[in-house]
């Protein structure tokens, strides 16, 4: 993976110094909260309901065991012994004190990490394919370009105060595993007929209140020009993106208002001045960064291991795990392993300090000391010898990391929801837990097969509900109670689509039954091994609607006076709160 040189280290160290002084000035009153707000956001610090939340960047989801151990240290020393992995491959700590944040950033800098631009109206952490470098369908490894873009976007002076946040994702496989259609800029690194590397560039995708699938702005930007091309997109956006209404400020609204053709014309007019200028990438720089992503020292192995097959025959749970959590690797004898952070009953994406240390140890033992964080909020060991799978499964099982549910119903993506977030209308995590417990039966989940279920506590869509096959959104109602809308038909990947709402919203307790009714229709209507999403696309929404709304729901409503006051039981009070 990429390692800092003296320049990278100096920039991050100077950031810590700058931020430490900003915090000092805030605490002394020299800076008002309004002035401090974008400064702390651009260091990943949010004020939530109970405390500050610190979001730390994991560039394109790639992390070393040493860095993961630092997360465990931060969880213990500054938080409540756990952290939350996010859909943008980062980690968040939920119980942070403002006074501690400069020290946390200094600790992070000591292991080549930071929280730069993980929030705020700037270019955010670049996300990528969690199987980059090891996927069988990979055309070009996206990681070097993700790193080059990370450096380019870090403290870009012109684009630190954009109309709104700006998210870039990059993928290099035939199948898109980075949701590039749902980003402000989506990049697919590929090769043309001559074998030259370049980028298919999508622009104006995004979720939130107005979900839009990104449009292609250029079919092929040669690799030398990708930084200047992205710069021109950002310059047009910075000048003309709306600043009068935060809900209309994302680039997707500008692209839609202008039309993709006019937007492209403006970008390419701007770009004409930059093309071939000093911002153009050089072979030397690309080669330098590529050198950090060269293969580890793989052994020469074969794909067949008799011990594995014997063990599979003996152990049904191992077989299930192999089926769902182990993915093919491009090198014979190796496998990609997904460690699930979605054990039914747990909080999706949460890991304790002990689990972080355990996965760091597993990475050292089985996967060249590296890990990846997935945008489905799980962890990946990318380079495991197949002959180690049994031991790995046994070791990881001790830390509850082997739920065999990757890509299944209980592999739920969820935002933090109303217990933590001031924006949310409703709770997300307890709903995810309730659903996971209802459908815990693994045989049933395997029978349902591939399906995505995404939950957001509000329309801002941090849980990416629009691109879940089943999407659940907390909606605001006059009575301030918790209500949820259900949508069907969303998908990510090459055939991305935005889900459609099936009808009137539901209460918290009704949701598991709603999902059950939806699944009954699928089981009744599916043809052979048809996936859930394919059935929805084939038969449309009507049969699902009819089934869901056919009968009343049993009423066992839990009374919740104020959802923001409901503190999750697992987090003992009293809590520190910056609000009071």
């Amino acid at each position, binding site marked *: 993976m990429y*390692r*800092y*040189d003296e*320049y990278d280290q*100096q*920039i991050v160290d*100077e*950031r810590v110094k*700058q931020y430490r002084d*900003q915090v000092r000035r805030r605490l002394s009153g*020299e*800076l008002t909260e309004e*002035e401090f707000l*974008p*400064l702390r956001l651009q260091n990943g610090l949010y004020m939530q309901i109970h405390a500050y939340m610190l979001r730390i960047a994991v560039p394109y989801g790639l992390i070393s065991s040493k860095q993961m151990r630092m997360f465990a240290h931060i969880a213990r020393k500054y938080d409540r012994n756990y952290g939350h992995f996010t859909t943008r491959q980062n980690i968040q700590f939920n119980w942070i004190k403002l006074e501690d944040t400069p020290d946390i950033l200094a600790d992070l800098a000591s292991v080549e990490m930071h929280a730069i631009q993980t929030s705020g*109206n700037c270019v955010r952490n670049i996300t990528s394919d969690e199987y980059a470098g090891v996927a069988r369908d990979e055309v070009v490894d996206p990681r070097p370009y993700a790193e080059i873009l990370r*450096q*380019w976007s*870090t*403290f*870009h*002076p*012109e*684009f*630190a*105060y*954009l*109309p709104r946040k700006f998210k870039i994702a990059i993928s290099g496989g035939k199948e898109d595993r980075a949701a590039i259609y749902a980003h402000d800029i989506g990049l697919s690194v590929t090769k043309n007929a001559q074998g030259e590397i370049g980028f298919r560039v999508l622009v104006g995708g995004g979720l939130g209140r107005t979900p839009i699938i990104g449009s292609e702005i250029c079919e092929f930007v040669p690799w030398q020009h990708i930084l200047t091309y992205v710069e021109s997109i950002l*310059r047009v956006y*910075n*000048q003309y993106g709306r*600043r009068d209404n935060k809900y209309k400020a994302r680039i997707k609204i500008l692209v839609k208002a202008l039309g993709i053709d006019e937007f492209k014309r403006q970008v390419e007019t701007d770009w004409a*001045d930059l093309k071939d*200028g*000093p*911002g153009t*990438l*050089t072979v*030397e*720089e690309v*080669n*330098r*960064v590529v*050198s*950090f992503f*060269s293969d580890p020292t793989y052994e020469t192995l074969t794909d067949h291991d008799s011990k594995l097959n014997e063990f599979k025959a003996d152990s049904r749970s191992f077989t299930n795990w192999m089926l769902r959590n182990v993915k093919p690797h491009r090198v014979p004898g190796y496998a990609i392993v997904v460690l699930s952070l979605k054990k039914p009953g747990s909080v999706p994406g949460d890991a304790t300090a002990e689990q972080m240390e355990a996965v760091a140890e597993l990475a050292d033992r089985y996967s060249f000391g590296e890990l990846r964080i997935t945008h489905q909020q799980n962890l990946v060991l990318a380079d495991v010898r197949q002959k180690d799978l049994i031991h790995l499964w046994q070791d990881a099982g001790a830390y509850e990391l082997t739920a065999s549910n990757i890509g299944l119903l209980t592999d739920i993506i969820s935002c933090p929801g109303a217990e933590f977030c001031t924006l949310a209308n409703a709770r997300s995590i307890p709903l995810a837990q309730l659903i996971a417990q209802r459908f815990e039966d693994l045989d049933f989940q395997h029978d349902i097969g591939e399906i995505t279920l995404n939950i957001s506590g509000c329309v801002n869509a941090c849980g990416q509900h629009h691109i879940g096959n089943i999407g659940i959104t907390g909606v605001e109602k006059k009575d301030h109670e918790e209500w949820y809308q259900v949508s069907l038909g969303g998908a990510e990947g090459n055939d991305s689509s935005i889900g459609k709402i099936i009808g009137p919203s539901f209460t918290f307790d009704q949701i598991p039954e709603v999902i059950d009714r939806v699944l009954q229709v699928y089981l009744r209507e599916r043809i052979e091994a048809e996936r859930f999403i394919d059935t929805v696309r084939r038969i449309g929404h009507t049969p699902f609607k009819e089934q869901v709304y056919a009968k009343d729901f049993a009423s066992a409503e839990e009374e919740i006076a104020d959802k923001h006051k409901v503190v999750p039981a697992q987090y003992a009070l009293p809590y520190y709160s910056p609000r009071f």
Partner: protein
Amino acid sequence: MIIKNQAIVADDWVLLRLNEQECAESVAIPEGKVIVPLQVWLAQHETLRQRAEVGVWLASDERPEKLKEDIHKFSVIAVDFPKFSDGRGYSIAYNLRARLGYEGELRAIGDVLRDQLFYMQRVGFDAFAPRPDRSIEDTLKGLTDFSEVYQTSINEKLPLFRRVQRKGNSAASVA
């Protein structure tokens, strides 16, 4: 006092802002060194261009291309930041320097604060009029937050990868 070329210096320019009753065509412009709004310049440039020294300022939603024909006549061009979080001024400055070839004083005015100064300097501002309620000595410190940068911009024509020899994996993997 303003910050200019990394130092605190006296400033004898007068900034003209129109109040609601005044209109660009008829407003009386004081004698001496005045920085007028773009609209005033466009309305009265026949008389204003007779002056020995004149300055103009742009609001964040105005286009610098409007100054294209007269760009070298100005002793100072200022860009207004109505709120420090309005980032359009950065692209205006970039366009003035990179596209219109403006080489005179480029001054940030309005909600100009210490923590944005480093970025402002990078996109071509060389003068800053900090918000009056803030210490100018303290604001000056914002110019030196970082000693190294990655990207090309106005004050650094080459990106880091073209300026220095950076090490590849062979050195880094030893650590």
